[in-house]
């Protein structure tokens, strides 16, 4: 295989607040007021979502899940942006935002249903203020845009009341940036000055296609032509992702309109458990990115700068083991839905013709199993 060789150096203007070596740095536009305890909490988030992810991969291998889309390498982008949300903000994920789901209090087991094939979603998007996973690439960016239109109509932007002013956070990938829907979302958000932050995790790959297939200029630059700011952030730096997302969500809540954040990161694992990246990318690429690991740098900071005790790390590790156990045992226990349930919730009011199909099916199922 000809190796696909590319520069992975970030742009010089990428926002970074924590170097890969774990050193705190400042950025003039994105100051971050954060305690070491808060950073430790982020560390815990990062570790736990990585654990959920690796357990899910194992469960898929054991046949307990049909598929899994791993977030490995993207934990900082997801935890940073997810923790920037307020409870009453609304987030619209793709199918890979397990870290954001975690921040939105979606139970780890609930997250598995879709990939196990026991349901098509699983949580209550409005209770969690976290939309269901959307698989059609880019479609959710329009849903987010429409939700933001509703926020404006509800008078929930720019009032100055922090409990009221609401922002919307829309996730999508580098590949998705090519979809018409995503660009239409930009059109609407720009023209309507909507309270929305578009959060693009540029993990360098859309399955087998490198980001250069989608654009020859950095993706964050797309925003300007639609009339709103774009910024690139080190997507492996949880502090930078937090600070940048927080600021732009604030702008949105304050009626200053939309923004685009490009989190420059890397998909360390295959696209999904079905994928074989050896066919299309060099292993050396992942090796390079390993040096920028989103968790290692926080651990380094906590150890060296914040002088966090080893007990803390041990406690997180223990919690992580518990989580693993919870996911493993819980996943196997998720019951299959009943066959007749395929007729549920197709309509709010089941039409007669569908009721008949259900009844016929039920009696058929009975006759076969009898």
């Amino acid at each position, binding site marked *: 295989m000809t190796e696909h060789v590319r520069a992975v150096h970030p742009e010089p203007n990428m926002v970074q607040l924590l170097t890969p070596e774990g050193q705190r740095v400042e950025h003039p536009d994105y100051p971050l007021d954060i305690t070491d305890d808060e950073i430790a909490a982020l560390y815990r988030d990062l570790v736990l979502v990585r654990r959920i992810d690796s357990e899910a991969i194992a469960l898929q291998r054991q046949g307990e899940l049909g598929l899994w889309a791993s977030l490995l390498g993207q934990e900082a982008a997801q935890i940073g942006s997810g923790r920037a949300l307020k409870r009453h903000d609304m987030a619209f994920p793709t199918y890979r935002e397990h870290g954001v789901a975690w921040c939105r209090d979606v139970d780890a087991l609930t997250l598995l249903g879709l990939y196990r094939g026991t349901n*098509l979603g699983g949580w*209550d998007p*409005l209770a969690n203020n976290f939309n269901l996973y959307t698989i059609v690439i880019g479609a959710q960016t329009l*849903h987010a845009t*429409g939700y933001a239109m509703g926020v404006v109509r509800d008078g929930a932007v720019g009032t100055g009341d922090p409990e009221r002013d609401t922002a919307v956070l829309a996730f999508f990938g580098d590949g998705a940036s090519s979809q018409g829907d995503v660009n239409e979302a930009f059109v609407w958000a720009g023209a309507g000055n909507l309270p929305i932050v578009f959060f693009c995790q540029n993990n360098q790959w859309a399955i087998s296609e490198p980001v250069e297939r989608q654009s020859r200029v950095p993706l964050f630059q797309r925003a300007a032509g639609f009339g709103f700011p774009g910024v690139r952030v080190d997507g492996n730096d949880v502090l930078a992702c937090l600070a940048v997302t927080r600021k732009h969500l604030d702008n949105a809540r304050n009626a200053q309109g939309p923004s685009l954040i490009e989190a420059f990161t890397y998909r360390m694992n295959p696209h999904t458990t079905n994928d074989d990246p050896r066919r299309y990318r060099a292993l050396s690429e992942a090796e390079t990115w390993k040096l920028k690991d989103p968790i290692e740098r926080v651990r380094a900071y906590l150890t060296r700068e914040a002088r966090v005790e080893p007990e803390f790390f041990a406690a997180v590790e223990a919690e992580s083991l518990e989580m693993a156990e919870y996911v493993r045992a819980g996943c196997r226990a998720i019951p299959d839905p009943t066959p007749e349930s395929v007729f549920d919730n*197709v309509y709010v*009011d089941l039409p007669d*013709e569908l009721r008949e199909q259900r009844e016929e099916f039920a009696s058929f199922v009975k006759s076969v199993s009898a």
Partner: protein
Amino acid sequence: MSDISSANPAVSSAPLGGPVTMARALNEGLRQAMEDDPKVVIMGEDVGRLGGVFRITDGLQKDFGEDRVIDTPLAESAIIGTAVGLALRGYRPVCEIQFDGFVFPGFDQIVSQVAKIHNRAAGLVRMPITIRIPFGGGIGAIEHHSESPETYFAHTPGLRVVSCSSPSDAYWMIQEAIASDDPVVFFEPKRQYHAAKLPIEPAGTPLDQARVVRPGRDVTVVAYGPTVATALTAAETLKVDGVEAEVIDLRSMSPLDMPTLLDSVRRTGRMVIVHEAPQSFGIGSEIAARVTEQAFYSLEAPVLRVTGFDTPYPPSRLEHDWLPNLDRLLDAVDRIMEF
């Protein structure tokens, strides 16, 4: 209810006050829905200041404001996609697609999102979205302005698909569609917008019911939207020859009101379906298949279909030949009576 009589001369009398066109009935129905529920918003291209290219939303932006009657950027996928988001936020969007042929850029959002989200969410969210589509031909328009894409939606589980054929139905059905917690694709026979002024009935018929608009005993003619008028004219003509045609206005293409259809065909033994969409894999095929399955021994003849041909909609100079016109319908009834 706000005083609607003074604001706009085009909508100056109450809906029940006298005969109105279908266009006017829809306008009044939309107005009523907006008054009844502040969460109803109208969105689409040119629906605001212009009142829509057919003026169906005439005066509504003026009276309800730009926040509730939204002139959108020119992008159908976004019109539907943002409606999904508005629905998630508790709104009840009414999307206008300017012409039938322009619904396709929004097709993905309709088929993969609007139709499925309630199901995906195990019922935890609802998609009370109404998608209004002026449809059908006969107005001398250019390409993409005369199509009948209803089957694409009827074949999509999760959607309700309806069409009105009279001002009264238009008035009531649009309100029912908006009030429905299921998404509704609402086909308006544009050719009938200004065809006749008729009174509004005091109450509507449920959205998923067909209606016998003319009783008869010899043959059942099933129509919807623009072809109901053709069917009624045919029935009058046939009467002269002693054939009593029962005309059913289908009203709902999905779900289908099988009891009404079966009751009729069991009496008449013969059924002709008439629609403008191409014949193959059209609404008529499903009706024919189901009626044959469910009333096999009642049929004196196979169900016949009088429809658009399996070609693209033709240049307008040929549309009256292409459309299922009176002559073609009468010919089919002749054939079925001879079976």
